[in-house]
């Protein structure tokens, strides 16, 4: 198989799957990149409050052209809006929300996730790479539920769901669930449990693309 050929769910479908799992009334922090897509797919009638660690609870969508405000941005430094009922606060309060266990769900990207729920998502550890961690270590340490949304394999076909992370860890035993283009996988005491698979994906194919043994 050509490893660069995309199979399974599209990025939008992955975001839709994750969005459907967010309970009404949740306080959620979305990481930079693919996690940001999830906000566009929360169903009507479900109210989710988005937190961005640079000091806004009640983050709204991207502003219309011409309404951008350089002092109203998200953690990815992109222009955002504030919903009616939003609040602004300083960084210590923002990380009190995160580290103090007040946020319900953190959804992050990943370089690697291991079968015990270890996450590596901040550094490849390669020489010359500029290490940058941001708020990731605080999010995985404090938020009640940590979900990962990522392609199932790297662009060159390497495992991202691994027996042990080879990249520097963000946190140990912190991930609860992973959404990929091939499947939705729960991290359980027994191991990686497949909850759902994309149309046309067989369990055998999924196992081939995953280093640890999967549970059905």
């Amino acid at each position, binding site marked *: 198989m050509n490893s660069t050929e995309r199979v399974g769910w599209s990025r939008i479908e992955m975001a839709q799957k994750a969005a459907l799992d967010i309970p009404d009334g949740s306080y959620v922090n979305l990481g930079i990149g693919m996690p940001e897509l999830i906000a566009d797919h929360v169903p009507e009638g479900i109210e989710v409050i988005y937190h961005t660690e640079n000091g806004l609870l009640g983050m709204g969508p991207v502003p219309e052209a011409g309404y951008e405000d350089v002092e109203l941005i998200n953690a990815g430094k992109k222009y955002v809006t504030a919903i009616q009922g939003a609040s602004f606060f300083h*960084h210590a309060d923002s990380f009190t929300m995160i580290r103090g266990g007040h946020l319900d769900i953190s959804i992050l990207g990943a370089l690697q996730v291991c079968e015990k729920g270890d996450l590596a998502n901040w550094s490849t550890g390669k020489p010359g790479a500029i290490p940058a961690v941001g708020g990731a270590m605080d999010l995985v340490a404090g938020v009640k539920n940590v979900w990962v949304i990522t392609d199932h394999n790297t662009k060159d076909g390497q495992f991202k769901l691994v027996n042990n992370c080879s990249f520097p860890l963000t946190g140990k035993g912190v991930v609860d669930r992973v959404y990929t283009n091939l499947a939705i996988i729960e991290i359980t005491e027994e191991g990686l449990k497949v909850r759902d698979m994309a149309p046309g994906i067989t369990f055998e194919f999924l196992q081939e693309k995953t280093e640890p043994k999967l549970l059905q």
Partner: protein
Amino acid sequence: MINKLVGSDAEAVSDIFDGAIVMIGGFGEAGSPIELIHRLIDLGSKNLTVVSNNTGSGNVGIAALIENRQVRKMICSFPRSTNSVVFPELYRAGEIELELVPQGTLAERIRAGGAGIPAFYTPSSVNTPLAEGKEQREFNGQSYVLEYGIKADFSLVKCQSADRYGNLTYNKTARNFSPLMCTAAETTIVQAKYIVEAGEIDPETVVTPGIFVNRIVEINEPAHESILVASGERYLR
């Protein structure tokens, strides 16, 4: 009579000495006190340790301070971004030191520094390379890492409104680290978009109480870092 207003941005930063620890507010360009940083570049103080979430973008603001070789060490959580070129080059060349700190730990270390708390335990970074060599302790069966408070000689911050007492309000997500940094420095220097009469800021809405502030200068129309970067501006001494 208390009056913390000073005549110019140059005067406000004029005693920042070589080797000082300087906290600089802002998250990306939001809240970055670019005029105060540029006056610090004019002043030319060297061997600074700068505490700020990022390392600036393009060749203005914090990036220009670094490019002008005034910074010996950065303490930050995210030293690269889309337009960040200066710090990565110097870091790869081994010409600037980096202390990488998780963002929440950075905020709490500054808060602790300002609050008279020398150190604290946090769950962030446990079992990661950033906890290596640090004291760890278990509480209720969970591991925590010891982190130290940070104090500074100077803090440079940007606010929305200020009165002569130093009471401050901020604008949206430009608040970020600034209220914490105001508490943690021997001398806190503020650039305010508006200077208002004492009493004009409702005491219920004061974010930084005046006791934490030493000097205020009014900068009505601060430069926008992203616009300077887009136009290829360089700020060098």
